[in-house]
């Protein structure tokens, strides 16, 4: 165990007993959120999100592919996440870790379930459709990659422009229209530490948490849930956290909208 983490563990738990967080924010407050959209010219859409010290860069590429046999009228959406070794001394180079796959899949589920992108809209002509690649690049890890990834992915999608399609191929140099985004989904991640529940855990809080719950919602519906770690939540707790998640959705949506051109 890392020495400093060990000491922080005790410190964080002792403070939380008094309902205080080490950075003195409220139990259900997000850290400051900052979004920079359209910063990578070679992508069809991009956004870099800072959630406290967590930094995630999302790049979106669109590519023309043959439609699949079982979905001949649809395009495709693929979410990947990389926990880059430069983002934390804990992240190793090599094949995708279980954590990075879980992150990508939870974001994928929310975006898909909320029908943010109508896959039928991605059909270009018979047997040709767009595939949207959403890549989440973690540049600095300081906890709560789920919520930061949702913000980054949604902000990048909202700023995505579709390349021109001509003579059976894409002209990547010319982006002709905005990608149609039909819905906005955001997530809220809670950590349970010694029976106290907090929103948006930082890396030290994640280090000591017993259980984690991510709830992704749009305006009206819950779209994805992922509970993590060995600790448990009561059903009353889940009900309360669902309410809180809906409350935070408007705030997060405003952030995303205000960064859309």
């Amino acid at each position, binding site marked *: *165990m890392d020495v*400093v983490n060990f000491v922080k563990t005790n*410190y964080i738990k002792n403070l939380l007993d008094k309902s205080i967080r080490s950075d003195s924010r409220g139990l259900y407050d997000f850290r400051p959120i900052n979004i920079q959209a359209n910063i990578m010219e070679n992508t069809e859409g991009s956004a870099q999100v800072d959630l406290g010290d967590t930094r995630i860069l999302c790049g979106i590429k669109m590519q023309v592919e043959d439609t699949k046999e079982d979905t001949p009228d649809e395009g495709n959406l693929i979410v990947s996440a990389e926990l880059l070794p430069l983002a934390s001394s804990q992240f190793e180079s090599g094949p995708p870790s279980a954590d990075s796959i879980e992150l990508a899949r939870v974001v994928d589920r929310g975006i898909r379930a909320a029908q943010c992108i109508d896959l039928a809209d991605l059909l270009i002509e018979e047997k040709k459709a767009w595939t949207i690649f959403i890549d989440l690049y973690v540049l600095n890890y300081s906890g709560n990659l789920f919520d930061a990834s949702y913000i980054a992915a949604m902000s990048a999608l909202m700023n995505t422009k579709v390349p021109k399609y001509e003579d059976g191929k894409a002209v990547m140099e010319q982006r002709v229209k905005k990608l149609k985004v039909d819905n906005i989904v955001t997530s809220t991640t809670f950590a349970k530490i010694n029976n106290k529940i907090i929103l948006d855990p930082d890396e030290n809080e994640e280090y000591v948490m017993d259980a984690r719950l991510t709830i992704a919602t749009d305006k009206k519906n819950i779209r994805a849930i992922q509970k993590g770690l060995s600790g448990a939540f009561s059903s009353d707790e889940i009900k309360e956290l669902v309410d809180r998640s809906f409350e935070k959705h408007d705030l997060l949506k405003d952030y995303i909208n205000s960064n859309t051109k």
Partner: protein
Amino acid sequence: MTEILIPGDLIEDKELLKNNRFYISENNKHYCTLVSLYNNRLIPLEGYWYPNIDETVVGIIKEVRNNVFEVDLSHFLRAIIINDFRNKLHFNVGDVIEAKVKAIENKKTIILIYPRLLRDGMLIQTKPVKIPRIIGKNNTMINQISSFTKTSIIVGFNGLIYIKGANSSMAISTILRVEKEAHTKGLTENIKQILQKELELTEK
């Protein structure tokens, strides 16, 4: 004259080489290897702690064996305390301690002596190169932070600092400020004024 040297820069004044571990010599010329502040002395602005005998460190017990305590100093060198059979020490894994450097063996293991348990309090991590500035000339900086914030502070040369007392959060933010502004002039006086102002604000 104050300027910042970077790796590869020629060090013209041979006086600067005294007490300076990180330079290299080629053809009787000497070159800097770390980003350093040149101000009568050559002071590294980035870099790691290289233990010297008698220096105070702050660490955490990470392993307890029959006659040896392994201490995590948040450093790439291993550190140990050898238990004295006549005066048997009792530490548990996770205990925060201060100790002094007794010796360095084979460039790899730091032998510590005079360990003392530090109870409660808080631990922060700073860049070891900034520690001399955090302490200040004749302890001026650290004494002033300690007395203004009514805290007791133990500064480890390895970069870990232990703080305990009434206004520890103010002490922490001040120490982190000193770390950030370590290369600036008149820092002791500036920090004094900031502390005075903050105290007035909190008293109101």
